[in-house]
């Protein structure tokens, strides 16, 4: 479980640099993990997180304090990662077209060593599905909190999680399909001090 994600419930002043620095420190780890699952590349995830904070900094003076800052940042970051994946896909199509008729280039041994099967399977999921899966099973959010972060209904979150489990179980094994909650596993462990997304 990620122990990152500290309190962000203190009053935030839009446009204030210190408050934005605090947001950056508190949300960077969670966003990096989530975007790593979406992109499947650690360097690309760092790049996307930094780019997301640049966009957020530009929009920071217009931020509405009544909105949850975690969800605001999360949506910016996920949209940035989606744009990255779209561009990467276009680049890969261009590479395929350029290499038509030529021998295929072998994979970088470094990539094969660092990118685990789990990361590759996560990166193959639709971006928002992968983000929901990481938020739920790595960061410890419940469905309601994820729904608030993503700006969708809880039903949508449940459907995305089921889709993720199905896809991952096909790629990684039946254990990834999960099991129905029992009395022991019903309680979801939440990271310490994560109160940025309240149920209010």
């Amino acid at each position, binding site marked *: *479980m*990620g122990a*990152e994600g500290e309190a962000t419930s203190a009053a935030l002043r839009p446009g204030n640099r210190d408050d*934005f*620095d605090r947001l*950056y*420190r508190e949300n*960077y*780890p969670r966003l*990096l*993990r989530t975007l*790593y*699952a979406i992109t499947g590349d*650690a360097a690309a*995830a*760092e790049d996307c997180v*930094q*780019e997301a*904070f*640049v966009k*957020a*900094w530009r929009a920071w003076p217009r931020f509405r304090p009544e909105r949850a800052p975690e969800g605001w940042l999360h949506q910016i970051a996920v949209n940035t990662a989606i744009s990255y994946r779209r561009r990467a896909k276009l680049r890969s199509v261009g590479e395929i077209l350029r290499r038509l008729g030529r021998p295929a280039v072998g994979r970088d041994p470094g990539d094969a060593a*660092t*990118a*685990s099967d*789990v*990361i590759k399977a*996560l990166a193959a999921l639709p971006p928002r599905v992968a983000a929901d899966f*990481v938020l739920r*099973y*790595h960061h410890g959010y419940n*469905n309601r909190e994820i729904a608030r972060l993503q700006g969708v209904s809880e039903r949508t979150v*449940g*459907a995305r*999680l*089921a889709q993720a*489990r199905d896809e991952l179980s096909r790629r990684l094994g039946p*254990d*990834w*399909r*999960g*099991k*129905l*909650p029992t009395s022991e*596993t019903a309680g979801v462990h939440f990271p310490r001090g994560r109160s940025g997304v309240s149920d209010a």
Partner: protein
Amino acid sequence: MPDRDLSQHIRRQLSAALDGGAPLIAPLPSQARFAAPRGAMPSPRWRLRALTVAVAAAGIVAVTFAGPPQPREWVVQSVNGISKQVGIPAGSATPTPKNESATSGQKKPNAPTESPEATAEPGESPEPAESQQPPVSEPIDGGGGGDHSPEPSPSNGD
């Protein structure tokens, strides 16, 4: 649809994959990318100063290298350069009007054989002859041509 949960083993595997692949080295806020544009962007006052300095430097360079126009200067320089390469003294090269005046002006005082008397025409002597131009201070008394004494004779006083 029932909300299934993952086993602890699978969760640990997920966390290990995420934490191992993307080590958490969060840059400081001051080192983050969003902090760079604000710090790197110069203020309008500095921009104005930089513009002033750039204009002044451009003006100095223009005044230094442009200068007054010197027509045909390149011809003189190229001819002198060619004459040096060939081995001909610069003065004996085909002179341009400017070069000729420059060489004649330099050689006149150094030439030992050239005197004002030797170069001057017979009728253009710098020292006027006595026979042709009498001195202005000599009184004209209308007397004999041989008497040039300015003193009066003693017989006039008696």
